[in-house]
């Protein structure tokens, strides 16, 4: 690991100022991904600004009926919070289905959103990777891409975003609060993460020095009946092969509104807007769920070794939506 300076910030403003003093400063949350990437030589910051002590790192109710989650809140605390469990169960389920108890006690909400892909080529500095070294190439296209993207990928990158939490936040339409060198601003989800295009080195729309300070959940009463279902290679402590976050608002057997997002299928937590549009106003039946899933996956471009993800994503979407009907 390369030597680096360490500074502990007490306010968001002072964190941004501190990071601005260094050419290659990085904010440190729980460190569960960053410290590992530094040890692997994937990233080598010259300064870490510890942002875990900026506020009380907890949850406040907003006047609009939503929740404001401090970015330094630990994932374990988030998933256990009674208001999160009651109002947005898909978010608690998503967080609890990721990593392990120890890692959830370390990882912060902001850091979870900004974790890097687990594509094996990205994490191996002896291999080319356009995300790690722009222009060096992408061996994953013709190599091990079994668990990489089927939607929205580019010639330069087929990586997936690894977060479970982000999938639920994309489905819920969370708003990310950012403090930057130019002041505060808000970034809606989906929209924080970006597709790789020709610049896979950029995971998000955030600029250097931008700090996530909070995540705001909108009031969404029907999300009280929501689910996150994750398919993985092991029973626990494993990244998703495919995951689905969904909420359904049904009245008289008809879908009034819905929220659906897919995980582990793209460079972003994938909001299934085509499926949502296909479902709104339709009968809440398995045939309609299949039609909506088909509409979403019509644009899938699987790679030779991950073709199975297309029918898998379709089946998981149908299953989650059908489960939500049954539990009403």
């Amino acid at each position, binding site marked *: 690991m390369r030597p680096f300076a360490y500074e502990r910030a007490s306010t968001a403003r002072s964190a941004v100022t501190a990071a601005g003093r260094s050419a290659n400063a990085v904010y440190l949350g*729980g460190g569960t991904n960053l410290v590992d990437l530094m040890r692997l030589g994937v990233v080598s910051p010259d300064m870490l600004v510890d942002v875990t002590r900026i506020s009380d790192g907890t949850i406040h109710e907003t006047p609009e009926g939503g929740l404001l989650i401090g970015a330094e809140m630990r994932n374990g605390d988030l998933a*256990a919070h009674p208001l999160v469990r009651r109002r947005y169960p898909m978010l608690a389920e998503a967080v609890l289905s990721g990593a392990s108890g120890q890692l959830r006690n370390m990882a912060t909400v902001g850091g979870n959103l900004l974790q890097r892909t687990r594509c094996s080529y990205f994490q191996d500095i002896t291999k080319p990777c356009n995300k790690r070294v722009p222009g060096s190439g992408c061996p994953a296209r013709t190599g091990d891409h079994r668990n990489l993207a089927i939607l929205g990928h580019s010639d330069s990158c087929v990586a997936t975003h690894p977060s479970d939490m982000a999938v639920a936040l994309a489905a819920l339409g969370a708003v990310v609060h950012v403090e930057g060198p130019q002041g505060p601003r808000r970034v809606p989800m989906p929209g924080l993460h970006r597709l790789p295009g020709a610049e896979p080195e950029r995971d998000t729309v955030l600029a250097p020095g931008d700090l996530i300070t909070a995540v705001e959940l909108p009031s969404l009463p029907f999300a009280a009946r929501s689910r996150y279902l994750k398919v993985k290679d092991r029973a626990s402590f494993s990244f998703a092969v495919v995951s689905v976050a969904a909420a359904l608002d049904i009245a008289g057997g008809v879908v009034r509104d819905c929220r659906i997002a897919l995980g582990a299928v793209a460079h972003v937590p994938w909001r299934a807007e085509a499926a949502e549009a296909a479902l709104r106003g339709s009968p809440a039946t398995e045939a309609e769920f299949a039609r909506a899933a088909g509409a979403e996956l019509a644009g899938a471009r699987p790679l030779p070794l991950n073709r199975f993800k297309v029918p898998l994503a379709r089946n998981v979407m149908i299953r989650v939506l059908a489960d939500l009907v049954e539990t009403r």
Partner: protein
Amino acid sequence: MVDTRETLLDTLRERLDLTGSKKGCDHGQCGACTVLVDGRRVKSCLTLTVTVDDRDITTVEGLARDGALHPLQKAFIEHDAFQCGYCTPGQLCSAAGMLAEAADGWPSVVTPGLGAGTRPAALDEEEIRERMSGNLCRCGAYPNIVAAIEQVAR
């Protein structure tokens, strides 16, 4: 004074001679390095020492009180919950942290109706296996580890 690069695991083992916490994978995947920071279980191999200078750290050496083994330590012996023993300090610290989480009403992803309430979760075998999935045992002593924890949880 410690180097900013130093992990809590290395500080414990190399400077403080607390060699109970073990270095397995050094990537946060095996759980052998698990310790409690302010009562919550974490992986000390991914924790930079500079970030916890004012925190209360409990290692496996601190589980026993006044010469009396922690109930988990006794149960691990009774149930023969180890073979080589390398993962055991991490298993013990993780189990201690896990029991505290359950007592605080924290759900796991297999908790039925986790969206519903805040009742303390009943720790059956399925719950224990899910909640302890951050600790690997290469000898495969899992059945006895689960039995030992289940006895203390009751």
